[in-house]
């Protein structure tokens, strides 16, 4: 048995670890766990992510393969924050039962889908619903989504950070002007605009700087506010009301901005995104004993929660999966009474968990890696990574990044503020996410893979910690032209 301790920060870590190890040994001695099972067990005791997540206190992940492997991985993940005194033994026993060979039908709960890649999970349907019906959600909960952020507000709107970004942009314009290469129209884009606060701050600051320095760049500015929610774009208008003549509001898919904006290929001088990549569909891979596995998930509602929801909202347990599908497709109004629909949405989202399994990549010949990364290139990257590592593929982020870079002017730069794992070794220090942030999904982003995609597209990718707010977990990714 391998016990992996990466990130236990509390003083109680040692005693928790001891309790876990003692419990497994006693289960072995009592014959609840086979010697063979015990030998290939990997127990992961910590999990860096938001407190609200998709995990039970104890969950097992087993490997499946068309070709049975005698020593295929069997993993048990324990979220120590959820451990309550005396509950561990029972939770491990229950979970180990589900990890048996062959596996039992599933967790004790109501299944919402079959096993699939995380990016195809219904969890992302909830995420989409949240952004499309944000106003309903906020009205129901009585608080705005920014209040759900750690610290209660977005780092994106930090005035000093915005001022530095504007200064960098102004310097770029001056340099282009000195080289007689300044375009007539100066395109700038913000993707994922939220309430428009950052866009407004940026434009205010740029206007002021332009006046201070007498450069007359401001009137040539074409500022694009891009978001995939029309409702969000509407909400952002007041924040930029002083600059509306320069602004265009564009509905776009963050996964592929190029699709709507192909006419701006190689023309945008600066593109900025904050907290977008961490909210794009993702999937995960794991390398175990030299073999690469895709992590597949299936969403379920634990039985106790399903029973409670059924009683509270008078929906039979058997009808919960179908009702969830209708909710995700049609919104809360679909449940005849909006308030009841909203309550169902919140209850199901809060209770939803993800069961996991590992599937050998050899058994998934059709799997593709986004961002134009070839499997051989992924192997090259992984050659520098720890031998046993579980990591985000950050599919959505890679796709978005890959489809955004072609919009950049040859001298333009991209900035992305988000929560990044900047190299594979950081995965040794814990696995980061996914979690639930209010009604949305939040996930750490694999910066090492973004760097690889960037390099192949002609950009060096750098990460700078967000130093403007002490304790911030975010970093700023910025690109420079690769010669």
């Amino acid at each position, binding site marked *: 048995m391998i016990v992996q301790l990466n990130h236990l920060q509390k003083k109680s870590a040692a005693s928790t670890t001891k309790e876990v190890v003692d419990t497994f040994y006693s289960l072995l001695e009592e014959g609840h766990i086979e010697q063979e099972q015990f030998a290939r067990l990997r127990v992961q005791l910590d999990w860096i992510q938001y407190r609200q997540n998709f995990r039970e206190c104890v969950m097992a992940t087993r490997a499946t393969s068309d070709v049975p492997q005698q020593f295929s991985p069997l993993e048990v993940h324990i979220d120590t924050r959820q451990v309550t005194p005396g509950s561990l033994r029972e939770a491990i026993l229950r979970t180990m039962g589900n990890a048996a060979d062959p596996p039992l039908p599933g967790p004790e709960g109501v299944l919402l889908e079959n096993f699939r890649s995380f990016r195809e999970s219904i969890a992302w349907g909830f995420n989409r619903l949240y952004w499309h019906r944000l106003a309903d959600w906020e009205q129901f909960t009585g608080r705005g989504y920014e209040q759900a952020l750690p610290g209660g507000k977005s780092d994106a709107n930090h005035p000093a950070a915005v001022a530095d970004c504007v200064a960098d942009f102004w310097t770029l314009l001056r340099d282009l002007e000195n080289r*007689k*290469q300044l*375009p007539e129209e100066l395109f700038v884009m913000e993707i994922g605009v939220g309430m428009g606060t950052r866009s407004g701050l940026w434009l205010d600051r740029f206007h002021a700087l332009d006046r201070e320095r007498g450069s007359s760049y401001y009137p040539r500015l074409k500022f694009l506010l891009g978001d995939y929610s029309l409702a969000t774009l509407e909400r952002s208008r007041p924040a930029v009301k002083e600059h509306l003549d320069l602004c265009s509001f564009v509905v776009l898919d963050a996964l592929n901005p190029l699709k709507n904006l192909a006419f701006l*290929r*190689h023309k945008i001088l600066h593109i900025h995104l904050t907290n977008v990549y961490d909210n794009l569909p993702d999937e995960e891979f794991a390398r175990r004993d030299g073999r690469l596995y895709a992590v597949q998930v299936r969403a379920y509602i634990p039985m106790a929660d399903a029973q409670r929801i059924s009683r509270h909202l008078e929906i039979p347990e058997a009808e919960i999966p179908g009702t969830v599908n209708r909710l995700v497709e049609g919104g809360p109004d679909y449940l005849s009474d909006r308030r009841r629909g909203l309550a169902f949405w919140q209850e199901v989202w809060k209770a939803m968990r993800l069961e996991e399994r590992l599937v050998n990549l050899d058994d998934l010949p059709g799997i593709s890696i986004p961002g134009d990364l*070839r499997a*051989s290139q992924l192997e*090259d990257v992984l050659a520098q990574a720890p031998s046993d590592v579980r990591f985000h593929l950050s599919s959505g982020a890679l796709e978005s990044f890959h489809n955004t*870079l*072609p919009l*950049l*002017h*040859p*001298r333009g730069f991209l900035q992305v503020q988000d929560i990044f794992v900047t190299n594979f070794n950081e995965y040794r220090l814990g696995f980061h996410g996914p979690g639930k942030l209010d009604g949305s999904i939040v996930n750490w982003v694999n910066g090492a893979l973004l760097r690889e995609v960037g*390099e*192949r*597209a*002609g*950009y060096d990718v750098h990460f700078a910690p967000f130093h403007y707010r002490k304790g911030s977990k975010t970093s700023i990714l910025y690109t420079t*032209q*690769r*010669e």
Partner: protein
Amino acid sequence: MLMPLPILPTTVVGSYSIPGWLERLKTEFYARRISRRDLDEIHDTAVKAAIKDQEVAGIDIITDGELRRDNMIDYFAERLPGVQIDHASKKFHYDFYDSKVLGKLPTAPLGLVDDFKFLRAFTEREAKFCVTGPHSLSKRIRNEHYPSEEEFAMDLARVMNPELKAIAKAGARFIQIDEPCYSGFPDDLAWGVRALNALVEGVEAKIAVHICYGNRYGKPSWEGSYQYLLPRILDAKVHQLTLEFARRGGEDLQLFRELPARFELGIGVIDVKTQAVETPDLVAERIRKALAVIPAERIFVLPDCGCLHLPRDVAFAKLSAMVEGTRLVRKELKH
């Protein structure tokens, strides 16, 4: 016996699509997992395939696809005597080496003639040989000896000139000099043209100079207007200017309305920075725009730049569309 050229000859700028497997094998070579001999053989095979693709697409003047080259700088930097290279400075084959010159460049054969002979041996089409020009080389190879970039470029031209003469002597009737860095450093143009002239002095072949806005990683390195070329580029002792017009929209064509009769114009009609394949009709339309500016007898048809960043099927489809579009216009010219 070479095939005669039609009106509006079609050609390529130089590079052809680099297959993924070739990229992989080049990387394997740098990781010392395959030998130089094996890599040479792989290159020979890839070049033959590129030749065949161009022939089947119907290109009139073909190249070897430049598939032996990692990029437009290093292939020459490695051959230029006196250039020191840090072989550990490359992560991908396509990256530039950290190369520098610490003393005066000695003169020695660069080994490019064999590349041309290989191309000549495997095609009966007209063949073109492409060489990176001294201005662009001087921008990427670090100069730690010469008092100025201009003097470095002039000496590069001196060293490379005998090689070009040897290539011409080996049968090359068409040589293209690539100088994309003119667009990034327009203030250098006067001495850039002087270096170009020194490079091609006494070379018995049709000489084209290709000037684009860069194609590193399949994206432009600079933006601007070809206005900067005029009038200084007219001092160049070349026969043809080869420029990109497809991606940039063709407005700059008007700048060349008064191009002296001694110059031909190679017009880029294929955007190599997008994978969308042009239709023959679009190609024909672009050629007609050029015909409004310059007579057909002085026009060559080609992509904006090399096809190295395009997938093979896309590159082939684009070249085929270019040939088909050119045929449409040729028919119109006959009537």
